[in-house]
Structure formats: structure tokens, C-alpha cells
């Protein structure tokens, strides 16, 4: 019997997480080496359109589980359905997101098999997937294999694998599935609007600010702010406004160092590093970030790093492709302008 390679398509609020298509691409390469079919799985409510997309990105077929109870993501029913579908599969792939780590883990428990989260590379060895994943936030890498149990469950880090070119001419079978949702005891009561803008993990470009963003003595806070720490935060906000303007021109996500987050300059959602998000964009522009080891661990795999810092000895320059020794307050406005002029936006 042909191997079945299942790929879970993760989506939220009507949008597929782009790394899902990268996972379809990985499924396709696994099928080339192991043989078998790539079958995408779309669960939710009124999600037929995603199934069409999955075929364009390379899935041979799509299983669609549509139910009103699946409109809001909850791990229990999603895991139950996936466990039913994956029981006979060779491999089950997920893009790594805030939903799929738990899903992958729960399916692994249901099927008493192994789970390998946040994979960045793989090869085939003795008929099993030998996966590479970062540990200690990328300070080390480990190879992991699930050699006997099946399915092999992997979540794939976003931007670690190429996204296939969609082919609108491809066709494949879309099959609605019967589902056993199990008892659902939790209820989703709503969503808050704290959207960060461009998601750090999906971003092709990230502009980040560190402790240095508050370091502009030329700025004097309004007279009504008398508290010293509030003055510092006011200064930092002016600095992050410049970081944000550059990010906007580049269509980039805005990141921050732990020092900046801990100082209260910017919410935690923006933190890059060992205790924040681990990112690997094409371009990472670090502004006023000295480069503590725990920050470097979170962004060292960025393709090109630009560092702007007043201290020429800052460790960030050791990882950088381009460096500027100078004050970000002097440099960011003309840099934003220069990008605007050259990119014509």
C-alpha cells in the first residue's frame, strides 16, 4: 500500500498560515523519496476554498472536515479528528504555529507515537525522516528520528523550507470526511484585537529595536511627565516610532530585544530571542541592540543582518553583514526616506 503523507493546513480568521504551503512542499519531497501520496487536511467551517489552494500548492488530494463546531479552533476536537485520519499514515506534517505544537503533541499521545516539533531540515535515513531541530534556542542543533512508531509527526518551522509555486491548473480530489468530534467541554467566547501587525515568524523583513531606542538625550519629554522611568518610556516610544516607520516602509514586522521588553518599552509579543520568538527573515535590521547571547540565539539564522549601534564593539556586529556605527535617531529617518525613494512607495 502506498505511504500516506498527511499535511495539516493551519488557518486563522479566514487566512491560511503561509507555512502550511511550505509543509505541502515538504510533503511533496518526502513523497518523492518515500513514495506515496500527499494528502492535505483542512478542518474548520466553510473552508472549502483552502482545499482548492492546497491542490494548487501540490497536494494530491484534500480531506475536508467541515462542521460548525470547528469554526473556532480548539485543540480537543481538532486533535480527535486528526488522530482518526492519521492512524494509518506514514507521516503527519504541520507548519509550526501557536496552534499546531499542541495539536501535534496531542495526536502523538492518541496514536502513541513520536512528535518532532519545529523542524528546520530533514533527510531520509533507513526509511525514516531524520529531522534537524534547534535546541537551546538555536545555540545547538539536534537530529531526531522516529524510527519505529508511525505516523512520524513533525511540525516544520516557517520559512525554513521553500514555498512551492502554486499551479492553478492542477487538479485533485477533495473529499469531505465523516468525523467523530468527541465531547467538547471548552467554549471560545471571543477574540481580542491585540494584533501585532506583520507576524514576526512569517516576516521576510524584521526591524528590531533594543535598549538604545530610549537613548536620545536631545529629546525632552513633555513637562507633565515628571517620573524618571516614565520619561525613559516616553523617550523609548519616540525611538520605536522611528523603528516602526522604517518597518512600515519595508512591509516589515517590528521586533525588540528582551532588554527593551523588560524595560516596558514595547509589548512582549515583539520580543525576539531565546525567551521570545525565534525568527529567520531574509533581512534583519537591529537598531540599538547590543546583541546579548539570548537575542542572537533568536535571530542568528536571518539571511542578512544589518546592525546599527553607537558602540563599535557591540557583539551584534560579529553576526552582521552590514554595520553602521552611529546613532539610530540620526540614521533611521534618512534610512526610511532612502528606502521610500528607492522602493517607490
Amino acid at each position, binding site marked *: 500500500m502506498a505511504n500516506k503523507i498527511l499535511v495539516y493546513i493551519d488557518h486563522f480568521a479566514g487566512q491560511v498560515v503561509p507555512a502550511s504551503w511550505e509543509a505541502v512542499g515538504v510533503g511533496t519531497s518526502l513523497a518523492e523519496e518515500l513514495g506515496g501520496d500527499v494528502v492535505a487536511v483542512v478542518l474548520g467551517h466553510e473552508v472549502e476554498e483552502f482545499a482548492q489552494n492546497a491542490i494548487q500548492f501540490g497536494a494530491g488530494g484534500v480531506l475536508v472536515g467541515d462542521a460548525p463546531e470547528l469554526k473556532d479552533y480548539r485543540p480537543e476536537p481538532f486533535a480527535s479528528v486528526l488522530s482518526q485520519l492519521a492512524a494509518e499514515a506514514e507521516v503527519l506534517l504541520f507548519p509550526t504555529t501557536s496552534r499546531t505544537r499542541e495539536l501535534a503533541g*496531542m495526536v502523538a499521545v492518541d496514536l502513541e507515537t513520536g512528535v518532532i516539533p519545529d523542524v528546520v531540515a530533514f533527510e531520509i535515513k533507513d526509511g525514516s525522516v531524520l529531522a534537524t531541530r534547534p535546541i537551546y534556542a538555536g545555540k545547538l542543533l539536534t537530529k531526531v528520528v522516529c524510527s519505529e512508531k508511525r505516523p512520524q509527526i513533525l511540525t516544520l518551522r516557517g520559512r525554513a523550507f521553500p514555498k512551492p509555486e502554486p499551479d492553478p491548473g492542477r487538479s485533485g480530489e477533495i473529499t469531505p470526511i465523516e468525523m467523530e468530534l468527541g465531547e467538547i467541554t471548552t467554549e471560545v467566547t471571543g477574540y481580542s484585537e491585540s494584533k501585532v501587525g506583520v507576524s514576526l515568524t512569517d516576516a521576510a523583513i524584521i526591524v528590531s529595536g533594543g535598549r538604545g531606542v530610549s537613548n536620545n538625550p536631545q529629546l525632552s519629554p513633555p513637562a507633565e511627565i515628571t517620573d524618571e522611568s516614565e520619561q525613559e518610556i516616553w523617550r523609548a516610544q519616540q525611538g520605536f516610532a522611528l523603528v516602526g516607520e522604517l518597518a512600515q516602509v519595508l512591509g516589515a514586522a517590528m521586533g525588540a530585544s528582551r532588554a527593551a521588553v523588560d524595560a516596558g518599552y514595547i509589548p512582549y509579543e515583539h520580543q525576539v530571542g531565546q525567551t521570545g520568538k525565534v525568527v529567520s527573515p531574509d*533581512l534583519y535590521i537591529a537598531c540599538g541592540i547590543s546583541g546579548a547571547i539570548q537575542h542572537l540565539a533568536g535571530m542568528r539564522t536571518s539571511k542578512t543582518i544589518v546592525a546599527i549601534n553607537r558602540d563599535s564593539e557591540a557583539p551584534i556586529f560579529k553576526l552582521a553583514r552590514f554595520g553602521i556605527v552611529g546613532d539610530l535617531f540620526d540614521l533611521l529617518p534618512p534610512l526610511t526616506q532612502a528606502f521610500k525613494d528607492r522602493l517607490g512607495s
Partner: protein
Amino acid sequence: MNIVVCVKQTPDTAAIVTVEDGVVSWGDAPVVLNPWDEYAVEEALRIKEAHGGEITAISLGPEDAKEALKQALAMGCDQAILISDPVFAGADTLVVSKILAASIDKIEGTDLVIFGRASVDSDTGVTGPQVARRLGWPALSLVAAISSLDPEGKTIAVERMLDEGRQLVSSPLPAVVSVVKEINEPRYPSFMGIRKASRAEIPLWTAAELGLDEISDPAVMWPDIMAPPKIETEVEMIEGETPEEIAARLVDRLMEEKVI
């Protein structure tokens, strides 16, 4: 409210971690309570302060891995248990979740289990949800706020931090929660707490005591651990007379190298 906090001992995040012949070391950097778990312990303490009850910190690790538990005690947990047995060596998350679920079963009467979102060493982030699945309790992962908690009605409402924003979820208890950094600001252990912790007897539970006569083999193995490839980069410093000139040069170089 009886709470179990699952903690792990990890090297300090400032440590330079190296590997030689497959053995990971972090020099003389200290081992600490996994930073994510500090938030789990803190949240348990806050719930206890509001609703009463008892907090048990448990940790799975080798026999000398008591630092995390001592720190949890020093912060204010009522008791700590080390889960340790030579047969647990090499356990993957599948096996770890089985051992932790058996431990929580043995503790009895637990209303809430709290994990940190992941450990900073192996960074899988799946153990909490796997324990929830084994116990058959709801998994509430990546919680940034507990918006309400009703110990009598046995319900909890949380804000989960998804990549795209926060999802508000209500759930019956018992449940398994994993927390993120936004949830609180962990306290420093008090002097008294540290003294109490240093004198505390930490009981050790083995496989036999958990009724785990047969520990299944791990499903995944780690045949190799290595340093990441050295990043070969020679920094090119961009200089100029004015900020405008420097900015223009940087954009030129980024375009020449087709970065943009």
C-alpha cells in the same frame, strides 16, 4: 484550589552552550528554574493567594536535579516532589507526559496543572498539552491571562496568546494550562523562602511508586547533537559624511546584493 506546577531545571539562558561528542555542556553557568516555569509558579501563587489551596511543584529529572524545585519552594510553593528513576533516562515527550500524568494522578484532588510554555533547553512546547491529553482534561496553552476562576463552580476562563491575537476560552476544571511571559511578573524568593527551601525534604518518586512497572521505549531518539554551522560573515562597515549619505549607501549595498 489544589494546583500542581510542573517545572524543569535548565541552564541559565545567558550560558554559552557547547557540545562535544554528543555531550552538551554549559561551562560553569548555573542551572536554574526554567525561565518559563517562573511564570507558572508565580501564577499558582497568585491563585492560591486569591482562593487558598495547596501548591505542589513536581519535576522530572536525575536525582541531583533539585535546583528548580528548591527555587519553586523558595518562591512559596507548599511542597515539591522529584520524579526520578534511572529507567526514565532518554524519555521523550511521549514518555515524559505519561510519567507526569501518573504523578498528577497519584497526587489526587488536583484542580489545575500549570506548565511554562516550553523549556528553554529542548524547547518542544508539547509536554503540557500531552499531559492534558493523557489526563483527559482540557489543554489551555499559551495563556497570557486568567480572566476568571471559580473554584466552587469548577470553571476557568483564560486568554490564549495565538500568533494572530488573543483567543478567549472558558473551560471546566480540572484543566492543564501553559503560561506565557505576559501573564505576570514573577516574584523574587524571599530570604525566609530561601531558608525554608534549603531545609526542605524533597521526596523522590520512582517508577515503582507511580505504578509504572513498564516504561515504554521513547518513540523518538536523538542520534546526534551538533553546533550550528558557523556563520561566515565579514561585517562591512558603512560609513559616510552625513547620515543621509550613510543611509543611501546602505540601501545601495542591500540592492546590489539583492537583499531588497
